[in-house]
């Protein structure tokens, strides 16, 4: 028995030793996806800064970008949960304009904007819930289901609003407006909301049962079910989470652009940009693993390419070229690191 204790003790020591020595390696290993995304972002910013130091060392460009970037961040983070659970949601931008329509119509009617926002978020959540039920309870493919939902909502918003835009100018300067899109100095408040969203999503993904369950479900659905994870509920919750975020992002975009547009310019571009953020961030489409912080960095990367390319002196249409290039580079580096 004493012998066994001694053996155990020795084992403890070696383990302790191994752990401390491998602490940094472990950290890199566990967070390699987010770290690669961060490195890609830093290289990109260096490139832009060298190309146009005056702009990129000033504040104005960041203030401008931080004004609209939060929409993408808020949308991208919950979507990581859905993708990690090995599903996809393509209806979130339509859901966003659906929620915004509800917000704009009720606010225009003179309701308390905080209440209107709550309604918009609930509407978004409901859409997410329906998506989740169709995919997980009835067993439809999420790709097709959410494409269907996307068109359904687009049609509903266009038809329901008679394609009449609603101006939200009357909200400027109200406490509601200042809470969500006001300025602190010159710093846009919405960026603080984006960081709050980031913290919530990271807590949920890394430290909460929900994130753990989502990863297990996306990794091995059958085993998760056998181990007692309520898979339908967990996966539906991920869709609801995206719905809630879409509602919030919808209201944010309404406040930022001060209008509800029944036919927004290019909803698909926003959708693809958000999806690209997630993949650049290092979340693979194969499920089971993902990174919230990576998606955050990815959203910044995609957004900065748009402005950076123009500020670096290239024509606007090069944006798409660089977007594509960065996506391919980021994916290759994620793959390369993994295969080692």
């Amino acid at each position: 028995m004493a012998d066994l204790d001694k053996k155990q003790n020795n084992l403890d020591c070696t383990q302790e030793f191994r752990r401390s020595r491998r602490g940094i390696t472990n950290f890199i290993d566990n967070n390699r996806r987010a770290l690669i995304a961060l490195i890609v972002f830093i290289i990109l910013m260096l490139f832009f800064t060298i190309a146009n130091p005056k702009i990129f060392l000033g504040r104005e460009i960041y203030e401008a970008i931080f004004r609209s970037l939060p929409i993408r961040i808020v949308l991208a983070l919950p979507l990581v949960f859905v993708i990690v659970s090995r599903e996809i949601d393509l209806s979130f931008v339509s859901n966003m304009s659906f929620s915004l329509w509800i917000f704009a119509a009720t606010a225009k009617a003179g309701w308390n904007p905080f209440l209107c926002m709550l309604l918009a978020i609930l509407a978004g959540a409901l859409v997410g819930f329906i998506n989740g039920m169709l995919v997980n309870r009835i067993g439809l493919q999420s790709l097709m289901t959410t494409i269907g939902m996307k068109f359904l909502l687009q049609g509903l918003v266009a038809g329901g609003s008679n394609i009449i835009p609603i101006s939200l100018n009357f909200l400027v300067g109200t406490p509601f407006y200042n809470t969500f899109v006001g300025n602190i100095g010159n710093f846009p408040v919405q960026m603080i909301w984006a960081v709050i969203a980031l913290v919530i999503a990271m807590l949920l993904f890394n430290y909460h049962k929900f994130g753990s369950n989502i990863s297990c479900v996306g990794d091995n659905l059958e085993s998760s079910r056998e181990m007692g994870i309520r898979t339908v509920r967990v996966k539906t919750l991920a869709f609801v989470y995206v719905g809630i975020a879409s509602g919030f992002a919808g209201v944010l975009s309404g406040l930022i652009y001060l209008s509800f547009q029944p036919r927004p310019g290019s909803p698909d571009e926003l959708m693809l940009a958000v999806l690209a953020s997630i993949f650049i961030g290092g979340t693979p489409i194969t499920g089971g693993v993902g990174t919230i912080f990576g998606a955050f960095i990815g959203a910044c990367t995609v957004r900065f390419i748009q402005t950076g390319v123009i500020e670096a002196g290239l024509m606007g249409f090069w944006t798409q070229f660089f977007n594509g290039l960065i996506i391919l580079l980021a994916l290759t580096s994620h793959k390369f690191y993994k295969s080692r």
Partner: protein
Amino acid sequence: MKTKFLELKNISKSFGKVNALGRVNFYIKEEPEIVALIGDNGAGKSTLIKIISGVLIQDCGEIYINGKRMKNWSVAKSRASGIETVYQDRALALQQTLARNIFMGRELTNIFGFMKNKLQFAEADRLMRTIGFTSKVFASGSIVAKLSGGERQGVAIARALYFKANLTILDEPTTALSLTEAEKVFDFILQAKEGGSSCIFITHNIYHAYYVSDRFVILDRGRVIMETDHEHTTAEQLVKDMQKIAKSNGKVKEDINNGRS
């Protein structure tokens, strides 16, 4: 008569026209024992364990736990009764850490649902060492995909152990493993028995099965055709019996074993 932990009476199950199980009786004693389920492909072994674990519902027949008849048997009820099933190759979420796999679906959380990560890691650490798990790359934070096949089975068995399963069911735990790894798995099973957990396992390797099992149940074409225990047979005898059954094309009477046990 002593109560049995698990008793199945007259269990039948068919898939369309195929009779997977026909009036099977099966039991697990109250004190820990290791039972090997042996039989050819399609003998109904997997169907039987799926019914025990609640994944499949029997067409007719009764299930008793500690002498009490269980109605509406399900995965949840099976687990609540302390029955853990470890399916070959798909028991674990491979891209997750060892600790997360052990606590999958039963995370240690505070009232807000946030996981006690440190505690989970420490518990996983302790657990893996008690079952003699010594791998060079091992840590509670290791990704399971990096472990060898035998070690993965070990993680799955450890999980069953941690939650104090009364009965662990292993579906072909050693089929894909090398000889030394298979031995490791059998060590895990013996450890589990010492810890008070019975074990049913399906195997094709009778020599392996003989080495650890207390009791052997041979199935053929959906019937229990023979039942014997360690003291009353030898591995060679079991192999002979199996060959006899295979040759007989299903005509062997169920009482082939009368008088031996």
